[in-house]
């Protein structure tokens, strides 16, 4: 059955200005995505795909009024496709009213939150923590993405314990030099510091029998090593499986490549969603990705653990003339692979989630 994942940006506007925000390069225009364009886009998708995963994104998606979501969810209910919804929010604009709506409509809510260092990089810490509690009181089990920068890179274990104390799932992303991070370069992450501290943290997590949260970054790495397979787009041939609808109505391969060079179509001029794949920009992305993979297959022993990684990372690395993402991933995979071999015979004393993935193998 055909399936597609799509990010949708109802607006670029955001009520925060995080110190490393990648979106700064696109700006924070307060224009709202025309709801008729959005309806047309989803309808085009539904003609081809039985399952559609929508991630509301931005900007801050909760700056769109609740009535906007009410109208589009009503519209989607009339389509034949099965639609799954997620919302990625900074957490500041959650209210009992919108939580009720998203709960009733089976929408998963994920947050962006930097834990103990949130005040420094993001702000509104108390408000976000209160809203996390509100989500939990309403039956949600939220998780958050935490960005690692040079300020908090030495504190990952304390951050993890903090997330545990809040029963908040945790995902760790290293900060790269993009968007606002280019101006706030005192946060710039030294890749070697990240690798060293992440490995220490990983071992701490793997040995933590009291772990009460999902730490998807760690679990995914173990999966990549033992199963040589991943469901996340970063390691799983995202082309053709992911699309991004920008607030201007144009369609891109992902949220990191929302420029003319990578534009796959303009919803208002389209008759079929196939048009986003049957054009020169998509063909060029595909050809370049194949070429890059061919190079990786020849020279990298970790190819089967990452399948050449994120397309956008590869493209942006080339444009910025660096290869940080690959360097980090390769070194982390190497260390964790060794650690799995070392620890696989003593799983009974280790983190349940870690042991579960290894035992499954």
């Amino acid at each position: 059955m055909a399936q597609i994942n799509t990010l949708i940006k109802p607006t670029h506007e955001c009520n925060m200005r995080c110190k490393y925000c990648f979106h700064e390069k696109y700006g924070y225009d307060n224009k709202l995505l025309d709801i008729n364009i959005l309806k047309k886009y989803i309808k085009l998708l539904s003609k081809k795909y039985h399952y559609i995963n929508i991630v509301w994104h931005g900007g801050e998606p909760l700056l769109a009024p609740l009535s906007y979501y009410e109208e589009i969810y009503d519209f989607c209910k009339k389509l034949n496709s099965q639609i799954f919804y997620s919302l990625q929010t900074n957490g500041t604009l959650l209210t009992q009213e919108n939580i009720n709506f998203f709960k009733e409509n089976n929408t998963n809510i994920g947050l962006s939150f930097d834990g103990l260092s949130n005040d420094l990089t993001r702000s509104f810490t108390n408000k976000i923590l209160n809203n996390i509690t509100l989500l939990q009181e309403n039956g949600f089990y939220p998780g958050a993405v935490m960005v690692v920068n040079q300020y908090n890179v030495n504190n990952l274990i304390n951050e993890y314990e903090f997330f545990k104390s809040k029963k908040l799932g945790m995902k760790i992303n290293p900060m790269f030099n993009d968007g606002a991070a280019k101006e706030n370069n005192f946060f710039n992450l030294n890749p070697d510091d990240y690798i060293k501290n992440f490995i220490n943290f990983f071992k701490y997590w793997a040995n933590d029998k009291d772990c009460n949260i999902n730490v998807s970054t760690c679990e995914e790495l173990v999966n990549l090593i033992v199963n040589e397979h991943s469901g996340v787009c970063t390691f799983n041939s995202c082309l053709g499986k992911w699309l991004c609808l920008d607030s201007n109505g144009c369609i891109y391969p992902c949220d990191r490549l929302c420029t003319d060079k990578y534009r796959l179509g303009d919803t208002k001029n389209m008759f079929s969603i196939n048009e986003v794949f049957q054009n020169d920009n998509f063909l060029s992305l595909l050809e370049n990705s194949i070429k890059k993979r061919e190079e990786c297959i020849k020279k990298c022993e970790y190819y089967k653990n990452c399948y050449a990684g994120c397309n956008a990372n590869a493209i942006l690395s080339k444009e910025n003339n660096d290869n940080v993402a690959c360097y980090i991933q390769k070194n982390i995979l190497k260390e964790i692979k060794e650690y799995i071999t070392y620890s696989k015979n003593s799983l009974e004393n280790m983190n349940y989630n870690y042991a579960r993935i290894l035992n499954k193998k």
Partner: protein
Amino acid sequence: MKNEKKFNTKHLLELYKLYLIQANQENLNMNNYHSNEHDNSNTHPDYHNNSHDNTPGKMILKKYGTN
């Protein structure tokens, strides 16, 4: 419709097949995490590995969870 006719879709499909085979995937249907057995962490798929803080965290409702 016009655009589709002009484009060499056969070539595109051949390339796409190669792209998937490079990652040990053969399903041209562009399957996603819902059919990936391994994704049992109850989290949303990570659609990038960068700093954008835009990856939803833990799934909340089993009915529509990733498993």
